């Protein structure tokens, strides 16, 4: 699995932006890692790469936040509150199969709804407070290539 060590918040945003520039409609990214591991920060970068001007705020409470003003729509989802079920009622597959890019945090609670091809990124905190290790797990050729291109 490809790994990348990021030493700051800015580096996390920059990588998100680089990946965001490569994304196409229908792409699904799955981010996992502890609370505070940088998933939302990464998504802020990704939104920049999609030319989305809005502030990317945590989607935890509303589960899905939609951003329509970029190069592609961004659907930012957080399944954190779906631990005890309810995912199947939300119609997530309609987002995954849409004209936009879906980013899913805490996807283990919606595993059954995920498409075949997606990019999983695992965020790991380190003992150094600012440093994060990201592991890339592409599913499908599109994402395998994307990881090779972007994650040098």
């Amino acid at each position, binding site marked *: 699995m490809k790994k990348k060590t990021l030493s700051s918040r800015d580096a996390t945003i920059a990588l998100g932006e680089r990946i965001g520039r490569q994304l196409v409609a229908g792409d699904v990214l799955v981010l996992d890692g502890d609370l505070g591991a940088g998933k939302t920060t990464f998504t802020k970068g990704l939104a920049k790469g999609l030319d989305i001007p809005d502030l990317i705020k945590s989607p*935890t*409470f*509303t589960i*899905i936040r939609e951003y329509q003003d970029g190069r592609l729509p961004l659907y930012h989802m957080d399944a954190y*509150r779906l631990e005890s079920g309810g995912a199947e009622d939300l119609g997530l597959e309609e987002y995954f199969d849409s004209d936009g890019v879906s980013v899913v945090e805490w996807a283990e609670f919606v595993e059954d709804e995920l498409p075949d091809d997606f990019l999983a990124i695992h965020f790991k905190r380190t003992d150094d407070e600012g440093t994060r290790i990201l592991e890339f797990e592409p599913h499908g050729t599109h994402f395998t290539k994307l990881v090779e291109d972007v994650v040098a």
Partner: protein
Amino acid sequence: MAERTLILAFETSCDETSVAVVENGTKILSNVVATQIDSHQRFGGVVPEVASRHHIEWITRCVDQSLEEAGVGYGDIAAVAVTYGPGLVGSLLVGVTAAKVVAWAHHLPLIPVNHMAGHLYAARYVGEFMYPQMALLVSGGHTELVYMPKEHEYEIIGETRDDAAGEAYDKIGRVLGVNYPAGKTIDEWAAQGHDTFHFPRAMEKEANYDFSFSGLKSAFINTVHNADQRGEQLNKYDLAASFQQSVVDVLAEKTMRALDRYPVKQLILAGGVAANHGLRTRLDHDMAKYHPEVGMLQAPLKLCGDNAAMIGAAGYVDYQHGDHAGMDLNAVPGLMFKRMEVK
């Protein structure tokens, strides 16, 4: 007999299914909230955290009960008000659809209400509103400073850039093993501890009215995580007190600064986190010290969480301003007051 205008109000934006009957926007005749009904005895079963189908199961019972408690029938109702955003789309749609059905069947005007305006109007049950007005709206999904130059006009002058305050409570609560929603327990623990950890106060000194709680959340988690690795057990009361002090410091300081910049007649505190005792006490203190000229209304504890009575109060004002929706009203999950750029 004095003229009375009764609003039948619906609120289903998130976890709570609620229907209320409100008289003249100031008097609650009934306010049925599904999670607070004696659900186990009466209907058997609990409303799960998230699932629109459960709103569907509850909504008609809530309507019946709210009319019954108010002692009125559909013929007494002047208009139907409903939260159409922000919130979960599936949940919102249940309320919007139910409200449409009632409005259509009984030839009543349909009033779309912004959920955040609703939170603000929970404070209307405490006293009359005066303008210009500032509101600190803090909940699980929102942290906003809203300026109202006059009735029915809302401008966001500051908001969270990442997590909402209530969400930060829930997330650190999880680290401490406190069940969702964690705010009440953390508030109680905080009262028994001291600020010994001195967590960061994000953006406290920055010259804007925005908030950020993501850094605090990370600092808190790192502290607990590092202690775990050393095999050390930290005092949960001190952790809670330190966390809460950081949240309350930032909320109170930014609010005081907003009041320096915007002379208002009144400050409103509302939203789920407005039930936090630490925050209420702190604002009482700071307002008396820094802005004794400004009145303050804090939403009543019982109306801080989501409920339809607050939607009825806001809906009454919207009704008087002529806000009517057609049968094509849709849920707007990302609905927001407009953002004002401030210096």
